[in-house]
């Protein structure tokens, strides 16, 4: 089992003929992912690593019954690519681009909700259920099928923790990057619930950051809805206060945006707190 994807997931790669798209398609295929189609406007008819390329997502969906999409396109094209996938009947879309404008992200997420589509990103490495399906860019060396569910706002932070897990002989059920924000369709709370319901997952690593208030909502979910152990690592304890956005930032979020307030809330919710990846591994050994 895994969350959000399965062996039945039929992956479509947007921007498959680009440098990154082509490289990551090869990696996803090697991982055993069912990549059924690629899309690059104007390149319909081409073939990349044996995968047929179409001009439009709807053509690809009609031909190949693709049901999940990952886009390797630049920030300026992210909105168009995501909306095209959403309108073509894709059920689950991953938007990897970083630096996507907030307005474009609002459009993507709202269109997704109105159409009943789930989205990871923008600014996400995607997700991987090691051995089952890789709809993302996580480095292969840090992946191993196992029982730990990992959810992270930051791609690199999840790689770092996954590296330590694998080096300690531990594996992952799914590793999910929800995206760097500041807007999300699926957030930490959604993933915690999915991991709680996933039989393969025995413990969850929650990777948080300074900024926003998402970890406070996650703490509430941990306290009220979960009985699986959660190990939380929130980075940015020693970061200086970032620039506030006018008075609105303070009014909206108050003092809850600091790493320390998040760690306190997670601790109070029953999560085990780690200060670095080695402590994550120690906690996991303690609970298994």
């Amino acid at each position, binding site marked *: 089992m895994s969350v959000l994807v399965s062996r039945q997931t039929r992956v479509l790669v947007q921007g498959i003929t680009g440098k990154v798209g082509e490289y990551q398609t090869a990696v996803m295929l090697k991982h055993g992912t069912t990549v059924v189609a690629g899309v690059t406007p104007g390149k319909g008819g081409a073939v990349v690593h044996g995968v047929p390329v179409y001009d439009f997502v709807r053509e690809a969906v009609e031909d190949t019954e693709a049901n999940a999409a990952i886009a390797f396109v630049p920030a300026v094209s992210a909105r168009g690519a995501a909306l095209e996938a959403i309108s073509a009947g894709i059920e689950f879309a991953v938007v990897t681009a970083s630096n996507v404008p907030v307005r474009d992200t609002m459009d993507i997420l709202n269109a997704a909700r109105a159409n009943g589509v789930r989205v990871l990103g923008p600014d996400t490495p995607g997700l991987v259920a090691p051995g089952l399906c890789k709809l993302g860019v996580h480095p292969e060396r840090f992946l191993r099928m196992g029982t730990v569910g990992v959810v992270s706002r930051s791609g690199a932070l999840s790689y770092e923790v996954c590296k330590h897990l694998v080096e300690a002989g531990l594996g992952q059920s799914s590793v999910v990057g929800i995206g*760097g924000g500041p807007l999300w369709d699926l957030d930490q709370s959604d993933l915690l619930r999915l991991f709680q319901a996933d039989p393969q997952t025995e413990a969850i690593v929650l990777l948080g950051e300074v900024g926003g208030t998402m970890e406070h909502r996650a703490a509430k979910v941990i306290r009220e809805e979960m009985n699986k152990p959660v190990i939380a690592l929130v980075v940015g304890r020693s970061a*200086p206060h970032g620039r506030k956005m006018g008075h*609105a930032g303070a009014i909206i979020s108050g003092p809850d945006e600091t790493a320390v307030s998040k760690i306190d809330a997670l601790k109070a919710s029953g999560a085990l707190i780690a200060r*670095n990846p080695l402590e994550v591994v120690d906690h996991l050994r303690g609970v298994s």
Partner: protein
Amino acid sequence: MQLFEFQAKKILEEHGVPIPDGTLVSTLSGLRDLRYPAMVKAQVRSGGRGKAGGVVRVGDADQAEIAASGLLAEGLLGQRVSKLLVEEVIRADRELYLAVTCDGLRAVPVIIAGSKGGVEVEKWAQEAHDGVVRVYCDPVCGLLDSGVHFLAKALSLPYASFAPLVRNLVDVFLLYDAMLVEVNPLALSGDSLVALDAKIELDDNAAFRHVTLHTHLAAVDTASPAGRSTEVGKVAVVPGITHIRLDGEIALISDGAGTGLLTLDMVTDAGGRVGSFSELGAAAGREAMCHALGIALEDPQMKVVLISLIGGLTRMDDVAAGIVDGLEGAASLPPLVIRMCGTAEEEGRQVLCEAGLSSVDDLHEAVCRAVLLAQGAGQ
């Protein structure tokens, strides 16, 4: 990018939001012809301008010259003041707070309104949360009529003047790809509403949609040189890099926010002090790395450079090439610790090797080395 008050007000005025009559001056010579009494307002980007003496009420041209010469000569809040906005004095029956920003949970614009405005609004809002109301735009239909009516009732404002104003603020928010449009205070004078102050924060990621505007804004910008912050704690963003100047002697460069903050915490936990924090964008490569390394090497306070890389979308051979580029021709070279792993890590190590460089695989080890080197250098 945060606009200056005078820039924000110009945009608001063009979109039908009433603002005070005002004149922008950059020398004392223009002050004689203006009408008094007036407000003299230093054009700086920092919050807390009012408390710091950047907004002065003057009764006549003599007083205006005194206030202006002080501000132009001495600056404010550590920033140079090159422009002053001299505005008519508006008699306000009440001062309110009104802002549009994006709500992260719902992914829609949210209007935040307070029945009191002014410099202490955050403090007041946290103490008396009842006075602050939020109205969320609908994802399909935008700001609803019922929401506007609700705000007008909550703020006890005349609907006829409030409705177009709040709709115009939402229009500006969307049209300009803003992160924040804030009017504080919003003055009620009789039945009229006037934006006494205005703040607009643009979404730098959307600059591609507003090329003319962003180019123009950059031209009038008088802040510190792009890509470098000398003020401690100040954030500067250049394409692909976020840089923060801190109060230590280790220059930390990472290829993602999460791993950068983790490394920062680990350095601090190990007793080290980071003095320069650069984070490459998630998809950054050779050029951004070279640029970030340049910033670190040019800073005489930095005793050690710690590069913390773990590649997903970013290829390590690209970044490694950027390191080699950045070191080329560098005058002085502090001790360098490179931690590198992830996508195309073998190719990356090969690139470093050919330039006579090496890297470690483990982050704990890299942090430990950097802290020890910094302590050795300090002694």
